[in-house]
């Protein structure tokens, strides 16, 4: 039977359906009208209309991160594509699988500076894992399936398919299998077994070991988290994680030391500094984690498992680098550990835990409450306590509130925490919450926000209301771009240049203007009742939580400092930054 001829637009829809896509996030425009027309005439794919293309990509990221499936975006040419750039860069930095379809002017107009023309493949070459300009409909089906393959295999990331308008009208046969073998791109998933054996030897002989895991474990899928838990428990070793990896190992477990890095716990960072064996699984030695590189974990043997060969030995030289998928490598590690009947050095480990407990006793996340003003940490802690036991997904914007959320909201499962780690994109949280809510309609989805960040994509409130998505926006409102102010205090003698959030909207009225519910809490005594109301409100909520304006986020490794040079609180003694450190972000 000869394959039926379809238009390019129909090929796009068919390929999406064949890839198992049921939801896409987008915004129409001239150069994608044929695809929107094809969307109109089918009912297998649900389209979520966002209010800005950046929101579409972040929503797709939230969808992807909370489901493990790729997120799909559809935007028009020119400004549609350029508005998507921040989201694409965000997905690239955080390894989130995104397939972004962009309209393009007709092929004969390319290069003529046509209306809404932009060199989309040129512009997005640097912020995607790969991209394609499809110049004829017969290539379209193959490119679509190739794009899904590239986005989801190896280290995941965003891809762009730029489709000129005439190609969307052009007819061609659709005769490609969704399961392709890529000509050149075949990432390694199984780790080198000799290196894994070598790693197990080092791990088994450790006196002061430390697991340091990252977003790679989450990306690898729930099996990786299960295997990680089994391996970590079998060894009895302490474990910390990056911001992106939270939830892979349960925060309620006694071997969990909390997040590490710039705003990590005292115990996690000191253990990183003093350990003799560092086992990095799916993290990338990011500068927020390592602090001063030449003082980073100076006495440890380092093992690094990463699916991306270019992550190994990029920032930190390691002793054993294993290229592979976390789940595959962890499976082999466990098998070898068990078959060789490895036992950790009990006595050494007991001493190590004793040392760790002395660091824990510093209670680096402690804060002082009072009756007058809500502490931001307190607000998050109450939110956590009051939502415990529910199916909760948390997204954040970027800044102090993000770090407080990472410190005080605890995750026992992967895929529950969505935050912009690498790029640090203010405005990520609300659209990401929308994406997560679409994927999990009955779950409680909370965007922990700051009053400055939330305004960067506040227009997505309309999306939430239109699609009846009951996302809860929990704003820690301190009337400052808090992290900017904190750095200005630390580095620029308190000259708070343009970091005050002036002329803020009344967030309660703003919620009402969008047709949502607004809630405000100003005193600690009001907090619990207001939170209860937020949780129980069936629709979207903006919660304006007025918090202590001058609270800073501690503990903190100032830039240019080492893990064992943390600032624990607002004491002037510790709070100094070297001249070199001032140069760093």
């Amino acid at each position, binding site marked *: 039977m000869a394959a039926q001829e379809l238009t390019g637009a129909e090929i796009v829809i068919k390929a999406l359906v064949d890839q198992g896509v049921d939801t896409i996030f987008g915004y129409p425009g001239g150069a994608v009208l044929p695809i929107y027309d094809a969307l109109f005439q089918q009912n297998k794919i649900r389209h979520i209309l966002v209010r800005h293309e950046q929101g579409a990509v972040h929503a797709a990221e939230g969808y992807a991160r909370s489901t493990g499936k790729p997120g799909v975006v559809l935007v028009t040419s020119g400004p549609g594509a350029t508005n998507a750039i921040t989201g694409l860069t965000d997905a690239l930095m955080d390894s989130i699988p995104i397939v972004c379809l962009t309209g393009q002017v007709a092929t004969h107009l390319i290069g003529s500076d046509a209306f809404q023309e932009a060199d989309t493949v040129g512009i997005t070459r640097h912020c995607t894992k790969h991209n394609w300009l499809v110049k004829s409909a017969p290539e379209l089906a193959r490119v679509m399936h190739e794009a899904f393959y*590239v986005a989801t295999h190896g280290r995941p990331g965003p891809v762009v398919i730029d489709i000129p308008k005439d190609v969307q009208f052009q007819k061609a046969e659709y005769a490609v299998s969704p399961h392709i073998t890529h000509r*050149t791109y075949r990432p390694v998933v199984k780790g080198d077994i000799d290196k894994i054996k070598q790693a197990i030897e080092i791990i088994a002989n450790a006196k002061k070991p430390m697991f340091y895991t990252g977003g790679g474990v989450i990306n690898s899928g729930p099996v990786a988290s299960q295997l990680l838990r089994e391996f970590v428990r079998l060894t009895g070793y302490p474990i910390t994680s990056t911001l992106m990896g939270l939830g892979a190992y349960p925060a309620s477990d006694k071997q969990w030391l909390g997040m590490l890095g710039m705003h990590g716990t005292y115990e996690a960072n000191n253990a990183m500094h003093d350990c003799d064996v560092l086992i990095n699984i799916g993290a990338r030695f990011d500068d927020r984690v390592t602090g001063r590189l030449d003082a980073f974990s100076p006495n440890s043997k380092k093992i690094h498992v990463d699916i991306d060969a270019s992550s190994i030995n*990029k920032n930190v*030289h390691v002793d054993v680098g294993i290229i592979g998928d976390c789940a595959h490598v962890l499976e082999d590690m466990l098998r070898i550990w068990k078959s060789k009947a490895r036992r950790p050095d009990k006595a050494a480990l007991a001493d190590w835990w004793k040392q760790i407990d002395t660091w824990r006793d510093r209670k680096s996340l402690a804060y002082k409450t009072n009756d007058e003003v809500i502490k931001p940490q307190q607000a998050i802690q109450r939110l956590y306590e009051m939502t415990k036991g529910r199916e909760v997904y948390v997204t954040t914007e970027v800044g102090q509130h993000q770090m407080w959320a990472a410190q005080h909201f605890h995750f026992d499962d992967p895929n529950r925490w969505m935050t912009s780690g690498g790029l640090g994109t203010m405005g990520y949280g609300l659209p990401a919450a929308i994406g997560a809510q679409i994927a999990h309609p009955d779950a409680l989805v909370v965007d922990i926000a700051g009053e400055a960040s939330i305004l960067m994509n506040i227009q997505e409130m309309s999306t939430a209301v239109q699609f009846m998505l009951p996302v809860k926006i929990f704003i820690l409102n301190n009337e400052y771009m808090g992290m900017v102010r904190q750095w200005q205090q630390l580095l620029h003698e308190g000259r708070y240049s343009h970091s005050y959030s002036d002329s803020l909207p009344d967030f309660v009225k703003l919620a009402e203007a969008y047709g949502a519910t607004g809630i405000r809490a100003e005193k600690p005594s009001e907090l619990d009742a207001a939170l209860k109301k937020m949780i129980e409100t069936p629709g979207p909520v903006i919660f304006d939580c007025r918090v202590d304006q001058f609270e800073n986020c501690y503990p903190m490794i100032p830039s240019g400092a080492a893990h064992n040079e943390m600032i624990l609180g607002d004491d002037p003694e510790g709070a100094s930054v070297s001249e070199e450190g001032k140069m760093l972000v």
Partner: protein
Amino acid sequence: MKKDETIERHTISVLVDNEAGVLARVIGLFSGRGYNIESLTVAEVDQAEHTSRITVVTSGTPMVIEQIKAQLDRLVPVHRVIDLTVEAKAVEREMALVKVAGTGDKRVEALRLSDAFRARVIDTTHSSFVFEVTGAPDKIDAFIGLMRPLGLVDVSRTGVVAIARGPEAM
């Protein structure tokens, strides 16, 4: 942790799918991550397979060189990356077209020297020569250096192409 900070020069061969934008990806990688390009050549080498070979000469610390190779290798249209400086004994060649203008003794001397370099005259007028000279990059440098006082007016160089010695393909 000891870090080797010596700067090394490496010749890297990259076999890529000859698709639109592939060269831009490679060049963008170097500029975006702040790596050096000392020379870069590219041409299709297999019409049936649509593959091109890029030869890039770069310099950096051993850690940076490793990064460059790993970063190149993860580009989607890249088939293979070979460090010809490390993995194989390689031969390197470059071609230059060198224009020398002048008359009298200088012109005679230029012609005599070109013979010593086995350069060919591929264009001539009463007052100029264009020489074609092939060899390792330092031989080309030497030839250009010698031509400078003899009326050198223009140079066009191909950049380095390289291939491993012995019977194996890359």
